[in-house]
């Protein structure tokens, strides 16, 4: 395993970083380049930029801000939001993104994954999965960027992650929806179940509230990386201190 990755996730709207409150009333929290630089300098291992609402609004993210980010940071970053075609993905990669992350459009047309993996390689193709527990079974949800558009897919998460990796996805970002924003820790058993179901790296997402949660995602969940938003944006957990803590737990981190 390489060093475990700490991955801040930034929500983007109209080229600005925003913060959602219960999915509504997104508040502008600043310039995208300033945030990217700040995280890069603090020691983030990778960044994810998510154009909120792009998928639900039926549009693709725009490449202008990707270019601005690529110019200033020297760590890898993924972009997400409404990518539906091979050419849209090519435009994002050519603008300087290292990976594209797809979610709802892959559920609409799973062959998109095969096309992207064939042309750009699996290492460029990240699958975002929004997983929701109901009656002890985890199900995949679609269009989660907007509460009104969110819907069930009828697919079980473990079946879906096996299918997407079979089609060539090179990484899974597993977002456990019931943990989203609650800061009570990642869903460890579910993360472990997905890690055991696939052979690609799995990034835990949803629920980070304390340094111990990151430790558990790695040691118990088996995740390759841990993604979080609020605890980093609100400076509740400084990344250097988090990495120091993880190192004392015997977890390899890049410092």
């Amino acid at each position, binding site marked *: 395993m*390489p060093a475990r*990755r700490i991955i801040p996730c930034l929500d983007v709207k109209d080229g600005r970083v925003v913060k959602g409150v219960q999915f509504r009333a997104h508040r502008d929290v600043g310039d995208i380049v300033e945030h990217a630089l700040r995280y890069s300098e603090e020691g983030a291992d990778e960044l994810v930029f998510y154009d909120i609402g792009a998928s639900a609004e039926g549009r693709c993210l725009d490449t202008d801000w990707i270019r601005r980010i690529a110019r200033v940071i020297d760590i890898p970053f993924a972009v997400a939001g409404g990518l539906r075609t091979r050419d849209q993905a090519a435009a994002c990669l050519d603008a300087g993104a290292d990976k594209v992350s797809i979610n709802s459009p892959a559920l609409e047309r799973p062959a998109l994954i095969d096309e992207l993996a064939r042309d750009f390689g699996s290492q460029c193709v990240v699958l975002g999965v929004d997983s929701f527990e109901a009656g002890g079974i985890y199900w995949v949800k679609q269009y989660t960027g907007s509460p009104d558009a969110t819907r069930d897919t009828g697919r079980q998460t473990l079946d879906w992650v096996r299918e997407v990796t079979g089609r060539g996805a090179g990484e899974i970002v597993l977002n456990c929806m019931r943990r989203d924003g609650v800061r009570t820790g990642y869903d460890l058993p579910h993360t472990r179940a997905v890690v055991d179901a696939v052979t690609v*790296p799995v990034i835990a997402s949803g629920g980070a509230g304390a340094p111990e949660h990151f430790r558990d995602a790695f040691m118990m969940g088996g995740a390759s990386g841990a993604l979080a938003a609020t605890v980093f944006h609100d400076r509740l957990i400084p990344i250097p201190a988090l990495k120091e803590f993880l190192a004392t737990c015997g977890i390899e981190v890049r410092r």
Partner: protein
Amino acid sequence: MTLAVVDLGYGNLGSIAIAFERFGLQPLVTADPERIAGADKVLLPGVGAAGFAMERIATLGLAPVLRALTQPALGICLGMQLLFERSEEEDTPCLGLIPGQVRRLGPAPERPVPHMGWSALEVEDESIGLNSCDYVYFAHSYACDDGPATVARATYGRTIPAVVRHANWTGAQFHPERSGKAGAAFLKAWLDA
């Protein structure tokens, strides 16, 4: 100094060109054999699959030019793998400039594939701008054979050549343009050498 970035026409030249712009260079992104042959230094980037890349090299008529280069040249990620004799990826014959094969990484528990993320290096020759214990960013499912050309390595189930040097060619399996300060130091050392 002129730096030609070989454009195989499948995108993702964005970040590597930008990395060199940070050194005040204006890389020439081109598929023109004459401009590549005439540049002071040549960069062979690569994303995607070996088969597709070699097909593009053939279509663009670039194989003889790349094989005949004598100026310093650098292959990055897939661009490094293409320097070897053959890749298991779609069983593709490559440029054959460095002896050895490119083989698929086998996944194992706690060792997912692709090898994606920051791994520490063991560096034999620090003139490449890197030191042992530097972390650099990898994103690959295939890796070159270890051999006499290796000057820096990582370990991922087996030895992964991270930097190779052979005649005028240098290869980097990791992504220097996305490897923070260590990556920048590597690129600078290559430019200054």
